[in-house]
């Protein structure tokens, strides 16, 4: 499996479709334990990303990841904007100028994104944020040469579902204290869609 601009574009486009289709769900989750805008924020970001992908063409994965990071930083706003934006920024740096990435290399790119999120947001696992998807998912598949995309998707889904029973310690939901328990974290959910979109793209493409 080789990941080139084509795969990245397909992945991001699939991500856009997931977000657009689940905009309400994301906002409803955020309504319950936050301020109800996560779906709106993400939809605004991926819409702008779509415009970018439509109008510009890219040579290498690093280039597209960089351009998308700027869109996310400049368009999403809220907490999710800097987090996804920083993630893609670091992913771009990690991808560098390589034309094609192996599965292993691509996992390294995603791990760089995860590090950026942790660095920017200072959250640990168990604090009911998107970190609870990124960190354990990438840990589970660390060092894998080939990825079982069904396992990947199911793991991501399980991880985001696990946030339901967590007591939020970071982000807006933390203000609710114990009342945050019983609701799935919206950012973990959008991250699940990001990873589901990746599975759908690469599973088909494989």
């Amino acid at each position, binding site marked *: 499996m080789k990941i080139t601009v084509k795969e990245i574009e397909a992945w991001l486009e699939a991500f856009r479709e997931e977000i657009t289709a689940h905009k309400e769900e994301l906002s409803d989750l955020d309504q319950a334990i936050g*301020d109800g*805008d996560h779906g*709106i924020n993400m939809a605004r970001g991926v819409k702008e990303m779509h415009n970018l992908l439509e109008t510009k063409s890219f040579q290498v994965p690093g280039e597209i990841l960089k351009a998308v990071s700027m869109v996310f930083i400049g368009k999403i*706003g809220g*907490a999710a*904007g800097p987090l996804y934006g920083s993630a893609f920024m670091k992913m771009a740096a990690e991808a560098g100028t390589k034309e094609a990435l192996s599965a292993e290399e691509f996992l390294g790119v995603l791990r760089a994104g995860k590090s950026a999120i942790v660095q920017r947001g200072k959250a640990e696992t168990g604090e009911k944020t998107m970190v609870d998807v990124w960190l354990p998912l990438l840990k589970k598949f660390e060092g894998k040469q080939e990825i079982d995309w069904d396992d990947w998707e199911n793991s991501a889904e399980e991880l985001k579902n696990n946030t339901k029973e967590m007591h939020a310690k970071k982000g807006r939901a933390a203000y609710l204290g114990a009342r945050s328990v019983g609701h799935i974290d919206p950012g973990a959910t959008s991250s699940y869609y990001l990873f589901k979109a990746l599975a759908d793209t690469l599973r088909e493409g494989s």
Partner: protein
Amino acid sequence: MKKLINDVEQIVDEMLNGMTAAHPNELRRLEDTTVLVRKDAPVQGKVGIVSGGGSGHEPAHAGFVGPGMLDAAVAGEVFTSPTPDQVFEAIKAVDGGKGVLLIIKNYTGDVMNFEMAGEMAEAEGINVKQVVVNDDVAVEDSSFTSGRRGIAGTVLVHKIAGAKAAEGASLEEVQQTAEGVIKNVKSMGMSLHPCTVPASGKPGFTLAENEMEIGTGIHGEPGVERTELKPAKEVAQILFDKIQEDMQLQKGEEIAVLINGLGSTPLMELYVMNHSVAKILQQHELQVEETIVGEWMTSLEMAGASLTILKLDEERKKLLHAPADTVAFKR
């Protein structure tokens, strides 16, 4: 959802244009941004002060732009932090050579976006410092979490830091004064009726006719406790007690009081509330140097109010009374 608007997507843009149309001699909008600056920005030889956050808190923040308070306000989408590029534009526009202070309310999103902007500005050689306001005692203070929210007390940080900057103080001095306010200002809110984010079209929570929410934030978030509807004096007592638990105000101490309406609470009710608050403060023999009643940090059309208490010292007292000439706050 019933709102006096044209297009949900254009609300912030049209609001900003409506502001500059109303106040052409006071405010200027930076082209292609959501930033409003003082007409005469940058003021040379003065520390620039930038604040902002999601929209929906009007008159915060652009209503506080002007001599004696802010140099720029950055408006995000409704209840969504503005992005770093916007904040960066604001910083550049108000830097008069003495550096720029960012006044940030403690929300993960705001902190991260403003911080990124500060990094961008530092990279261009602009001296930037920041303070993070976390006055909301409804939320538990803990080093394990992102900590307390910034709410209405932010207005007093704007006022006092703005007055300090107007005196010609250095960036470090303005920051220090602002930190002093932040350490000594505590707030707590409650609501009777939620608000509806235009883009979502649905209220942030629901309350029955006989319920109220204690400890509500300013983003349509639910509060920390739901109780039956209580009279103003009991509400005042609950808010005061929670603040006092934290502040431990002593007899004779000088304070400033802010009664802040969350959007749709009539001024009549805010003054009734102040009547009840004033009685409690008197029982505690606190010396109220100043009381500010009105809508300063709103949450769209949420009904409810917050109480803010600021402990004064000589400097804060002087700076609180110093002149300010902004659209929403004049002194």
